[in-house]
């Protein structure tokens, strides 16, 4: 009996091992000749919009079978990690500029020939946009939308405080003056950032330098960036124009302070422009590019797009699908639906036409000015570790228990080599 039981357990365990080891390779094909497109979608609207783009793909490639797979943003990258680990990544996979560094090994590097096969030309895209899904000089994907960081403001609050409104060409001195004047009656002039882009945007703009060099070297302690970051923390600790953060888990602190009318200004991406302009609280909102400092007003160009899986067995068809997803028809759809600001230059005007007339002009002027001085984001190999170290420390910095320079120095020492 005992032997039999042990044998049975071993057999069951063996079956289990065999089952868990039974992962199919082959680029996530639904069946042999189907090209799978994997993209995040958080709602029925998102999925419907993606299906509309897939219709363009089917129309342009009647001989290729395509299938769309989606997962919400929060699950997409967990699923992608699993798919990559099991060699089951979809041939055409969505990717975001902020996430690319951790997933480059899953994507094939795209060449000029690949772009030609996809029917795309670099000149089709807005300036700098092809840097979005590039890492250390290699291109891993083509973007469908572009974004950058802006300053959003509560017009009602600033008008009541009797300050000027942020405008194109404004300076950091203007920013400080407006923030100081708007800090009144328990309200603050500015909502301090906790998210990676949200807190780094102003130091990068002020210092005219990214915390990582183009070759991936960490330069957190470069005086241009470190001084600007110190100034940024000082908005809470010295100038007291921003409220200290309540907890390190408040990733969207500054933006939430802004939408809940506790802060008159906040820095956030262009992807939230329409959301802020039509905010639930009902206040009049406006937007301006990041202020200009002595070193200009450098901003990062961000966005999302599609790449081809390294494991894809039918790269040529996958490239054709990618080309159709980035074609004028698909980009025009994205733009005219107002979903996001397209990467293809000729489709961009349609985005502004989709907006309410009341703020169309302001959005267009701000976007044009903000995208004038943009640079692709550079990241180091262990950029995720840098973010995970610095972000919870920002709370202590804003709370006056640690200095920005000490935290940046510590991060540089730990992750700089």
């Amino acid at each position, binding site marked *: 009996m005992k032997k039999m*039981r042990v044998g049975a*357990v071993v057999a*069951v365990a063996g079956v*289990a091992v065999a089952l868990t080891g039974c992962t199919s390779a082959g680029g996530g094909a639904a069946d042999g000749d189907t090209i799978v497109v994997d993209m995040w979608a958080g709602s029925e609207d998102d999925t419907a919009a993606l299906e509309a783009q897939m219709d363009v793909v089917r129309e342009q490639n009647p001989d290729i079978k395509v299938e769309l797979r989606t997962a919400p943003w929060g699950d997409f990258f967990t699923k992608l*990690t699993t798919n990559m680990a099991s060699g089951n990544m979809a041939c055409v996979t969505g990717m975001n500029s902020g996430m690319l560094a951790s997933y480059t090994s899953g994507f094939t590097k795209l060449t000029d020939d690949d772009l030609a096969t996809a029917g795309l030309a670099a000149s089709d895209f807005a300036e700098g946009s092809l840097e979005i899904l590039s890492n250390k000089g290699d291109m891993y994907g083509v973007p469908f939308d572009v974004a950058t960081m802006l300053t959003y403001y509560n017009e009602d609050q600033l008008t009541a405080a009797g300050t000027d409104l942020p405008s194109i060409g404004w300076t950091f001195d203007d920013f400080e003056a407006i923030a100081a004047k708007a800090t009144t009656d328990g309200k603050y002039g500015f909502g301090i950032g906790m998210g990676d882009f949200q807190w780094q945007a102003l130091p990068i703009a002020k210092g005219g330098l990214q915390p990582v060099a183009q070759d991936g070297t960490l330069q957190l302690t470069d005086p241009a960036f470190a001084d600007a970051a110190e100034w940024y923390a000082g908005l809470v600790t010295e100038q007291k124009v921003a409220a200290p953060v309540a*907890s390190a888990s408040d990733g969207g602190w500054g933006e939430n302070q802004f939408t809940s009318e506790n802060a008159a200004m906040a820095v956030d991406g262009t992807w939230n422009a329409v959301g802020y302009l039509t905010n639930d609280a009902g206040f009049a909102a406006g937007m301006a590019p990041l202020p200009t400092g002595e070193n200009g007003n450098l901003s990062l160009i961000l966005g999302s797009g599609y790449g081809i899986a390294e494991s894809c067995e039918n790269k040529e068809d996958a490239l054709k699908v990618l080309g159709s997803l980035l074609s004028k028809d698909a980009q025009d759809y994205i733009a005219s639906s107002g979903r996001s600001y397209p990467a293809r230059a000729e489709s961009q005007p349609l985005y502004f036409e989709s907006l309410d007339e009341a703020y169309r002009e302001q959005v267009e002027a701000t976007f044009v000015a903000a995208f004038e001085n943009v640079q692709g984001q550079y990241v180091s190999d262990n950029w995720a570790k840098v973010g995970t170290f610095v972000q*919870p420390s920002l709370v202590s910095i804003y709370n006056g228990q640690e200095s920005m320079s000490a935290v940046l120095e510590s991060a540089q020492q730990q992750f700089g080599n």
Partner: protein
Amino acid sequence: MTITNAPKRRSGSLAKVEARQALGFASPALVGLALFTIVPVVLSIVMSFFDWPTFGERTFNGGANYARLFEDPNFLPALRNTIVFTLLYVPLSVVFSLALAIGLGPRIRGRGALRVLFFIPVVTPMVANVLVWKMLLQPQGLFNGLAQTWFGVELPNFLADKNWAMIMVVVMSVWQGIGYNMLIFSAALEQLPESVMEAARIDGARGFRMTWSIMVPMISPAIFFATIMTMITSLQVFVQPQMLTGGGPGNATQPLVMWIYNQGFKFQDLGLAAAGAWILFALIITVTAIQFKAQKRWVHYEH
């Protein structure tokens, strides 16, 4: 001890048929056990001896991951945080829930309803609990608002202050988990034999003496069970610090499980994460073994 005669062995073929039937009934559970317990456990041991990125080549590196653990600037603080949390949380949780269970004794009217109220935080989603506590603790929150209005005192920024963050994680966790242990203790108290209690009363035991010398020893198996389970769950704490403080400020509230999560899922270093997980396992098994050893001194199983 009485010796009974073993039943006569049934014929071999029948035993075999029964064994097969039993195996058939047990097989779904065995497959589940193999798939979701045995295989992952074995795999994690193997993983901990490899340089195992989520994707890419895996190479055997002997015990290098275990050595790397102690070079990581966040590992030892995470281990310390886990131990500090456990040392604060377990006694507080057990003492308060025991006091609550005794307090909600037979003389309290509507004690069933009160028990349900205290049990609610155990079953409500942690996200909701954390949101409520954040609203209480943040600078613009209820506590600071009341302190300023009533006493003109500004309270610290509890969740962002290095000296307060861990205390608040413990306080919130005690509040959240108190109902569970309370229910265990209440059940044990309800089972106390009336004859023993009566005898103690006749002997003049009252109040604290009755509680400390009669009731507590008699429910010591329940206290032992609650302590063991609370200890194990507190060494695995993750959600409360993750959602309440994000492991911050700095790494002041980052527990070991969050460190493991970061290594595995954020930094995609599964080998190092698995090594950290085995250190945690060793810690849990050691503490549990010590508790089992120590129980002989204070747990009384016979009434």
